[in-house]
């Protein structure tokens, strides 16, 4: 099951989301350089916002294509539960959109004034938390299934739900750049993302089933 989805999704979008991320960072960087107020803090905020925006980028197509061409019917009628398929799809989505960006972050943040050691720690925090972003966005994809131009709607629904993770993520990465480490906060963040990963496939499958009644 896994390999089919991997090769199905490999055909689109890895380059797209990373280039979106790079362009977003560069544009904001150039914009801030005009005001003359670019600091580590703003850079951290931008990285987190950029990563959450780019994880919303290709989410619309996740179920929409399968819904349109009838593959989703097939999944529902197959022996594999939809929850499993949603789980696999979310992981594939994370690998194709967020993982390349996380690998890029040390390269981007090093010239902009964050030490490599710190940026690797930040990457670690992102590794813990960004899978949850992919999983949460499946809810949005399921809600707007069959809706033309649902992309805007997805961002309206889903961006607010990223808040808990973004709040913790930003705070922790700020602490990291100040060389303080709050183990408690790491644990809470990890717990949050694990809860999201555990629960969202069930919610998403319930919402997808609504479209079939």
């Amino acid at each position, binding site marked *: *099951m896994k*390999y*089919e989805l991997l*090769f*199905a999704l490999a*055909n689109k979008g890895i380059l797209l989301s990373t280039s979106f991320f790079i362009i977003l960072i560069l544009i904001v960087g150039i914009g801030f350089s005009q005001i003359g107020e670019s600091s580590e803090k703003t850079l951290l905020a931008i990285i987190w916002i950029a990563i959450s925006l780019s994880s919303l980028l290709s989410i619309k197509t996740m179920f929409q*294509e399968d819904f*349109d*061409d*009838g*593959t989703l*019917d*097939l*999944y*529902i*009628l*197959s*022996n*594999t539960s939809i929850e499993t398929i949603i789980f696999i799809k979310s992981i594939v989505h994370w690998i194709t959109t967020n993982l390349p960006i996380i690998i890029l972050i040390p390269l981007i943040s090093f010239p902009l004034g964050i030490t490599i050691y710190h940026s690797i720690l930040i990457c670690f925090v992102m590794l813990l938390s960004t899978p949850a972003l992919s999983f949460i966005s499946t809810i949005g994809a399921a809600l707007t299934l069959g809706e033309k131009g649902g992309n805007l709607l997805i961002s309206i629904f889903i961006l607010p739900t990223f808040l808990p993770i973004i709040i913790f993520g930003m705070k922790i990465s700020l602490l990291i750049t100040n060389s303080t480490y709050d183990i408690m906060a790491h644990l809470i963040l990890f717990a949050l993302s694990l809860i999201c990963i555990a629960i969202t496939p069930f919610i998403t499958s319930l919402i997808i089933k609504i479209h*079939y*009644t």
Partner: protein
Amino acid sequence: MNLIGSSLSCKRDGKLIFSDLSFKIKSGDVCFIKGPNGSGKSTLLRLLAGFIKVWTGKVSLNNEDITNRNDIIYNNFFYIGHSNSLKNYLTVKQQIDFWEGISEKKYNFESDSFNLKKILNRRIYECSEGQKRRVGLSRLSIDDKKVLLLDEPTTSLDIENVSRLKNYLKDHQKKGGIAIVASHETFISSNNQDIILTLNPPKNRERDPFL
């Protein structure tokens, strides 16, 4: 094997699509569903396939009540809808591999019921509509279930391929399977066994709660 539906009705978005539908299909039967557009042909098939919940009535297979029992439905029913479930960027071979992965069975290239050998390495977006339909129908012979639910299977097929489909269905009949086909034409003619089920819009519409 027999499939019996008794006084089925189905509701969608608060509206009654059809009501009081009863049928009885034995093994070896092909049942054609007829009716004007919007009379619920596709809805009936999707209801039997387990997508839509039965509003009232009962479906039973081999005298066992299977109403809303998706586990039994999955093991015995096979549904092909309007769409062919194809991914544009795959080749025909990859697409079949993908389906084989889902159903854990193999497409029989020896008999090749749908004449796909020639187009195996073509990408789906390069195929014509008829070829796409053939690829879509090839799922029939990958997954071989007892009850086939086909929604307009002859759309954009030429005469030769319609006869291939007929042959496939006849084989299926001989094996004792059931096929339920929603179609405008009965394409297995001169066979008295065929059952024809006509859907009519419900006469007594239920009162809307808002009225």
